């Protein structure tokens, strides 16, 4: 077995500092007041305003309407992240199931059509998508935020590859055991795909959580603002002698980072467990 040496640890520690450093600085800086930050720049020491700043960011009503709190934005981001992840998984699993297990005409063509949409990300089709949503009357709604981004070529491709690796005998055994297409999907394929679902969930949740451009375009109503827009908002108040609330922006960034971290940590352990004990 390979024995880790001093030098290996050195490299790993350097990596940790490189990755965690900015986060730590963001956190420590967020505990100072805005004025201190404005005059001193980033700070490594812990200031005395931790609870005050974070409480303000989470619960102070702000915005033009004076109704929006950090919590509302966090809930919106969460809805977006979860809606994205769950919607995409359901949709791409069903699409992959159809492509792999049902013989219909143009199945391969259908797959490649789905696959080529990878070349058309949201940014390319953003105006048409906006128009469609606006005509459907879905501007300023969660459905409008989530729906146009649900079709996922990547997800479909992942699940297609996975379903193809499931031995055919399993389907045959299930057919002899009297399981129809729906039962086979729910009783056998979905449980077998647990690890794939976990992996796709991680990717898609973070993707949805971090959406910035699309929510900015789709929502004018402040009650649909997400955390990503909230951070931007805080820094946009450069009026007269007022300085931006740097501390709040940092605090919000730190808070905005937590849910994705939690998701990654939880699902990663399932993911690895699934990888190591899978036996097909």
């Amino acid at each position, binding site marked *: 077995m390979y024995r880790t040496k001093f030098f290996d640890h050195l490299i790993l520690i350097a990596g940790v500092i490189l990755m965690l450093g900015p986060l730590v600085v963001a956190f420590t800086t967020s505990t100072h007041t805005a004025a201190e930050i404005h005059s001193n720049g980033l700070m490594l020491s812990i200031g005395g305003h931790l609870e005050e700043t974070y409480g303000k960011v989470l619960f102070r009503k702000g915005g033009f309407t004076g109704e929006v709190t950090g919590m509302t934005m966090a809930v919106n981001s969460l809805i977006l992240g979860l809606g994205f992840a769950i919607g995409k998984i359901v949709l791409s699993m069903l699409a992959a199931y159809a492509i792999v297990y049902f013989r219909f005409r143009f199945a391969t063509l259908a797959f490649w059509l789905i696959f080529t949409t990878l070349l058309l990300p949201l940014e390319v089709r953003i105006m048409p998508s906006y128009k469609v949503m606006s005509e459907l009357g879905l501007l300023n709604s969660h459905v409008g935020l989530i729906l146009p981004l649900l079709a996922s070529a990547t997800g479909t491709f992942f699940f297609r590859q996975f379903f193809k690796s499931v031995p055919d005998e399993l389907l*045959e055994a299930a*057919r*002899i055991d009297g399981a129809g297409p729906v039962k086979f999907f729910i*009783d056998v394929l979905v449980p*077998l795909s*647990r690890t794939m679902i976990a992996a796709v969930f991680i990717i898609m949740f973070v993707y949805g959580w971090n959406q910035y451009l699309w929510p900015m375009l789709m929502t004018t109503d402040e009650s649909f603002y997400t955390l990503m827009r909230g951070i931007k908002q805080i820094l946009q108040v450069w009026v007269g002698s007022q300085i931006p609330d740097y501390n709040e922006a940092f605090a919000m960034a730190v808070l905005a980072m937590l849910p994705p971290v939690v998701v990654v940590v939880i699902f990663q352990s399932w993911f690895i467990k699934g990888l190591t004990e899978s*036996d097909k």
Partner: protein
Amino acid sequence: MASILIDQVSKIYDGGVHAVKAIDIAIEDGEFIVLVGPSGCGKSTLLRMVAGLEAISQGTVSIGGRVINNVEPAERDIAMVFQNYALYPHMSVYDNLAYGLRNRKTPKAEIEARVTEAARMLEIEPYLKRKPRALSGGQRQRVAMGRAIVRKPAVFLFDEPLSNLDAKLRVTMRGEIRKLQRRLATTAIYVTHDQLEAMTLADRLVVLNGGTIEQIGTPLEVYHRPASTFVASFIGAPAMNLLDGAIEGDRLVIGDVSMAFGAQPGTTGSVTVGVRAEDLTLAGEGDQRLPFKVDYVEELGAHRLVHGHLSSQALTAVVPVEAEITEELQLTVAPERIHFFAKETGRRIERPGSPVEGGAVRSYAREASFA
């Protein structure tokens, strides 16, 4: 429990490949039929057509008198054991056994009773709560059999169920499958490419080659009176020696060797001569002598396989261990132990005085129905 009638069944794939060609087999209730042949002979395709996993291109399959061509696999009253077991990896052994019953809306108590009974029969009770990945190959095999048993089907279908096991376990499981099938008296179709498995398990063998039936018969019939050179070389280990020869008058000529042939050979001219290695013996005083050049010897413990040449044609003979092996041996064979096959077709040439070949296809009453 049911008889199976396979009537003129063919399988033609989309590309025009004719995998199974107009096959007829009548299987009696409770019979153990083994389909045997080299890979690509259509044996698995035939089994999968009976199971309903492949569509039947032509002909009909009936189970218990009911034509099942267009019946869903689950409605055919069959159970299948797959080569790779095909256990559901995410379900416990208990759930694996119970899944088919649950789908049939069997009452819970009944499921419990049947699974327990099957588990007892197969001695897998300690593993009921485990997942398949925590089981050894042999245990998984038992679970796969259990899944077939709990359903109490009319027909068992086995698709090379033992080929993933090591040699020793294969012998044990072979015996268990046979015992179980006798005990349950359920009709079974078993596919294998292993002629030994076929010989030991079958009530009747169906030897397939290139999508057609070469011979149907009891293991002994197939062994002692192979219907073609293909069957002769496929069934039995070592394979039957096949030599080019000719019959001239009452003598059999092989290369530059000839032997007197007392009985009527029933044919003349050039033929393929078949001799089992175990029918060749060392010539004693007064026997006809076939000079045999030894190339090499395989020691099998109980006896030896001697490979060599008889007038420059390869030949294998079984020689007792105590016999001394020199560079050239004198072999002999009883004339009635020699098989003749037509040179062009490879079909068996029946010799006068031996039973008619049609006997190979006649139905076979099982001796163990009451066991």
